[in-house]
């Protein structure tokens, strides 16, 4: 090859690289490219710590209680600041909405958060006793039409297959509605027996077999039900869920695409993972302030690419594992 040809190729490569990286930087394409790169280059093996979202220096999270992903954005209930903070996939804060109060668009204790297919955002407020619905711009649309007035102090909130699942701390129940507000089913009442709860804080549904997982915080366990609400088994960290519980104040619960269930143990600062057969496969976190450590973790969400998001209340961040 001639010397000049090599120089031409080399210059072309430099120019192209500069052009691509300037485009990504100036047109802010990073968040959009990230999922494409991630899906083209899937990570194998056990999930490990990847990054944390802190938000801006001026507006740090204060007691983030729950997290969800709607579209390609991450939504966090910033509970003590009585608002919702929204992040892109690089952790840049792109939107905030909500303020303290009891009126429309206001919160006292924003907790469970979920999105529907139209990318509307549903926020459960445990103190106001209602679920508010916002559009993607953060504008209040309406309250969730709870026609039977079954919701008293909503905590954990998820939407699967056009159905809204919400745990209620006061009535110690899991309530299931269609998105028009018609109550389809309720599970539980106060107590320690199978199928009963003390302060259920979170819910998740296995997308494959439609089994329902409810964190029964006061009883230090997660209970599993079939889609008709029939009790199946207990997960508490002991063998077959029959022994004394390993969890201390369990909170967020979520499943990945393999059917592995992840459970936050708030007061032991861990996330425990159990495979389909109930075998413990991993423990994430541990008490601390460093990367990958957790300090009183609470909310848990796993997205379609098996990225695990956990709210880390004292460290004032959302950490991501995959």
């Amino acid at each position, binding site marked *: 090859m001639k010397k000049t040809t090599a120089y031409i190729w080399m210059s072309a490569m430099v120019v192209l690289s500069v052009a691509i990286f300037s485009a990504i930087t100036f047109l802010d394409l990073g968040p959009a490219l990230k999922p494409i790169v991630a899906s083209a280059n899937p990570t194998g093996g056990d999930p490990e710590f990847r990054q944390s979202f802190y938000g801006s220096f001026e507006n740090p999270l204060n*007691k983030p209680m729950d997290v969800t992903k709607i579209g390609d954005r991450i939504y966090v209930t910033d509970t003590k600041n009585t608002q919702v903070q929204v992040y892109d996939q690089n952790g840049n804060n792109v939107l905030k909405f909500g303020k*303290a109060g009891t009126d429309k668009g206001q919160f*006292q*204790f924003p*907790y469970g958060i979920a999105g529907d297919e139209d990318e509307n955002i549903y926020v459960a407020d*445990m*103190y106001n006793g209602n679920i508010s619905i916002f559009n993607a711009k953060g504008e209040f649309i309406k309250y969730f039409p709870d026609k039977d007035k079954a919701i008293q*102090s909503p*905590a954990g909130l998820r939407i699967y297959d056009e159905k809204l699942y919400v745990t209620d*701390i*006061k009535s*110690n129940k899991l309530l299931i509605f269609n998105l028009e507000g018609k109550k389809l089913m309720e599970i539980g*009442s*106060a*107590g*320690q*027996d199978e199928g*009963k709860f*003390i*302060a259920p*804080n979170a819910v998740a549904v296995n997308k494959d077999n439609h089994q329902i997982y409810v964190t029964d*915080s*006061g009883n230090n366990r997660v209970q599993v039900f079939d889609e008709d609400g029939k009790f199946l088994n207990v997960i508490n960290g002991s063998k077959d869920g029959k022994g*004394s519980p390993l969890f*201390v*104040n369990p*909170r967020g619960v979520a499943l990945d695409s393999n059917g592995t269930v992840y459970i936050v143990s*708030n*007061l*032991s600062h861990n996330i425990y993972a159990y495979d389909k057969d109930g075998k413990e496969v991993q423990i994430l976190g541990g*008490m601390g302030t460093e990367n990958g450590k957790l*300090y*009183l973790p*609470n909310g848990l969400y796993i997205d379609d690419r098996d990225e695990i998001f956990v709210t880390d*209340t*004292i460290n004032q961040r959302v950490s991501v594992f995959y």
Partner: protein
Amino acid sequence: MSKIKIGFSTLFALIMLSMFAAIASAEEPFVPTPSNPAPGINVGTIDNNGNVATHRTHGNFQNNTNSCGNCHSTHNGDSATLLKFEETESDLCLTCHDGTLGFYNVEKNSGAGVFNSTHDSSSMHNVGTVAISSAPGALTPTEGELQCSSCHNPHGSTNDRLLNTTVNGKTYSTAAIDLDLVEDPDYKDINLVTGPTGLKIYKSNGPVFVNEDSPTVPQRVYSNFCSTCHEDYLKSSGAKRVDGHYSHTTNSFKAGRNCASCHYAHGTDITLLKDTAGKTVADYVKSGWTQEKAEAYMKDISEGGSSIKKYTNMTVCWACHQSTHKLDTPPVAGGNYSGKPTK
């Protein structure tokens, strides 16, 4: 000269030794019991009424527990009790006591008041941010911040509200102050199923004011509890404070004229404050007032803030001093004019 020196130092050492011996012999040796295995550590098996095994959330740990590490560091503690992360102590307590466990939510109104600064006229015992020595009426300089554990024992206590008998280094009684506790009807379902070895959820109607003054019953006047920090505020009628001022009586245990007659333990705000008739903002809204009108009426305008009071402004004076000194303001229908403050 040197002989004299030795003589003096020996004498001094002997004096110190005898003082130490006297103090050591005066202190009763600690006798461990199953429910109180070490000083300050209670396994929570005795409730406020002396019944066994009704409170085990705090104090009882599993054989494979790791919970000690939430607050203590074996070799890197910030204090002699090996505490760590002292600045986040209240956050740890609030991980459960914020309503997410359904009961004992300190951010909602209760018999102890409230920790919530979002409403008007709020004031509270600001745990985690104020020095104990900044307490009004404090006489002894003490180090340390006011924390939940200043008053409550996270390792369990011999009473249902985990109240300490030693606060700010001073033991006010061998038994904690009495609270009027009843099983909370809102948690009937839980209380029915947990049985004698589980959790029982009680509602506090506030302090019990009547304390027996007999040798068999340990003295525990509510004000003695508060005066461990607010030392100079513990006064009988007519007694002068250290700075020469006079104070309303605070230590009349028989008639109930003590700190808790006028003040909450946790905090207050406009939703809790009452007027002379014992009515709250909610009561007036129910009777037809607008929220704005009721809040403007109830607003505490005192220069020093609402001072964790149960009554707005100075209305607490009239709440008591009215049966013998009738005023001619038209009474509020259904109001309490008995001369005994509304609980």
